[in-house]
């Protein structure tokens, strides 16, 4: 009976779990099936955990139960409390915990088998060369993930400044650190003698890897955070897959690889949306090369009061709203929805133009607008909406800047030249709600603000929108 369980039932259950993970992800390809997909992935996780407990048989459950209860409570409370605007830092933090857990598993395995068991020999003879190398890679990737994610969390939540902190000669330092990790890994696996001389290389390896995570993310600026959290997401998956190699467990390998692939694709999409390469994001603080081209001074800029803006909107038959990061900061998504509702009530066609890097993580703006009950059919992607601007009466830009900067298309010397942008200037009139003329993340001037068909509406996004709502209500009543 025990034999049948170990030889057949456990592997079949693991396979079922892996298949459910894949179906779960597949569910996420459509809004309609997404929630079920997520539930399916959660079920897959449950099956994997139960199967592991079956596989272990009767063991001491003290640590296992304590860990599950404590972790479950912390995770559950955090997930229910987080605001939708705080999603990027929450995902970064969870991500760090995942990578950290993988690193800890590898550390625990090395420590238990090489030091506490007291067997003599090298890691290669005691746990096998492949398991040992796998553990070294897990510690490296997992530790980079946890400290990297923590720095990203601190930057995203504003606890430390979003400005890139550039350390001199950091590339040389980083390469040297990675190489020394690999050398330590080889030494640990084939040369160090357990149980006496393995502790030091393990500890040094862990310390270096943790430092590497900090050094990799510290130089990356706030605007590049969508790229870096996608990248860290991918690393946490790879760390899990590496743990699978250590334990010869295919479920870990499969699900880790799925997450690794997902993170890499998101990283790629974000890079394309910002017209950068991953290497460029990782290895240069933003705006380091030629960021000062052109003048930052503005010529005459037209400015409207909220009343005037409301009048323009009232007479428009088609309106496109461009929400940006500033909208999320001002928590103005619900007020934007009110404006849109009023305009729709009087018969105008309203849609939202979503730039891929709007918000602070991939797809973040969509979540914020969904929270405000905006139907997702009204959220139009950049490539689809760009040709539509020519036939749009009014565009309302709320808290976005760099993603509507014509310099990306018209000025080849601009630091953002070639970055795909929303071509709002093609519309009849554009209104930009913004506190001041201060630059966005890219730190450059936006010529759109000087255009003939552009009007600035200065002020706090939420306040201005509330005033527009009030004016629109009056205008509609009068009509």
């Amino acid at each position, binding site marked *: 009976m025990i034999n049948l369980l170990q030889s057949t039932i456990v592997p079949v259950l693991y396979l079922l779990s892996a298949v459910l993970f894949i179906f779960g*992800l597949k569910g*996420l*390809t459509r*809004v309609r099936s997404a929630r079920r997909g*997520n539930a399916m*992935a959660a079920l897959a*996780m449950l099956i*994997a955990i139960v199967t592991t407990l079956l596989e272990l048989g009767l*063991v*001491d459950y003290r*640590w*296992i139960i*304590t*860990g599950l209860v404590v*972790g479950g409570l912390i*995770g*559950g409370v955090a*997930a229910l409390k*987080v605001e*939708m605007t705080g*999603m990027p830092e929450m*995902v970064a933090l*969870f991500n760090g*915990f*995942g990578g*950290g*857990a*993988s690193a*800890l*598993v590898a*550390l*625990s395995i090395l*420590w*238990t088998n090489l030091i*506490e068991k007291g067997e003599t020999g090298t890691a290669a003879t005691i746990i096998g060369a*492949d398991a040992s190398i796998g553990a070294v890679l897990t510690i490296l990737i997992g530790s980079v993930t946890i400290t990297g994610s923590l720095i990203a969390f601190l930057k995203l939540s504003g606890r430390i400044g979003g400005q890139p902190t550039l350390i001199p000669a950091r590339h040389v330092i980083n390469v040297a650190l990675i190489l020394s990790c690999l050398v330590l890994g080889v030494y640990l696996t084939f040369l160090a003698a357990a149980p006496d001389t393995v502790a030091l290389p393990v500890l040094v390896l862990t310390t270096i890897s943790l430092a590497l995570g900090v050094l990799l993310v510290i130089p990356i600026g706030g605007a590049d955070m969508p790229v870096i959290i*996608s990248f860290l*997401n991918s690393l946490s*998956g790879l760390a899990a*897959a590496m743990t699978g190699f*250590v*334990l010869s467990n*295919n*479920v*870990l*390998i499969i*699900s*880790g*690889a*799925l*997450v*690794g*692939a*997902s993170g890499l*694709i*998101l990283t790629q999409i974000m890079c394309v949306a910002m017209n950068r390469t991953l290497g460029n994001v990782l290895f240069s603080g933003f705006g380091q090369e030629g960021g000062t081209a052109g003048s930052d001074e503005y010529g005459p800029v037209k400015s409207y009061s909220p009343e005037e803006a409301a009048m323009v909107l009232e007479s428009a038959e088609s309106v496109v709203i461009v929400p940006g990061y500033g909208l999320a900061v001002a928590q103005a998504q619900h007020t934007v929805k009110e404006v849109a509702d009023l305009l729709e009530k009087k018969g105008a066609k309203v849609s939202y133009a979503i730039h891929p890097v709007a918000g602070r993580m*991939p797809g973040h703006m*969509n*979540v914020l607008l969904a929270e405000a009950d905006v139907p*997702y059919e009204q959220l139009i992607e950049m490539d689809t909406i760009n040709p539509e601007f020519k036939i749009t009466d009014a565009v309302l830009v709320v808290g976005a800047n760099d993603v509507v900067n014509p310099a990306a298309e018209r000025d080849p010397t601009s630091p953002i030249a070639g970055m795909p942008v929303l071509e709002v200037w093609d519309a009849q009139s554009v209104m930009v709600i913004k506190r001041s003329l201060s630059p966005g993340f890219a730190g450059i001037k936006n010529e759109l603000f000087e255009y003939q068909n552009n009007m600035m509406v200065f002020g706090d996004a939420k306040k201005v929108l509330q005033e527009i709502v009030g004016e629109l209500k009056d205008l509609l009543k009068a009509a």
Partner: protein
Amino acid sequence: MMGALLVGIYVFVLAIFVGVEIITKIPPTLHTPLMSGANAISGITLVGSIAAAKSGEVAAGSILALVAIIFATINVVGGFLVTDRMLAMFGKKKSRS
């Protein structure tokens, strides 16, 4: 030993292809839930931490595994719950109309 490693590498490479195939089809609207959901899936390392904590001893190795279980469970429970919260908002309009 090499046999298991090779099979593992096969599985890894094939799973990456499956992942790429599926994930390129996910619309940008769902990228944030995808990321937090994928994140929760990377908490699968919980399986490894449970196996590592089975001795229940008060020793450095087991304590490390305990912390691993806590971290991984935070990732799993928090990740799936927060993804569900987000996806529930996307569905809201459907239930009303």
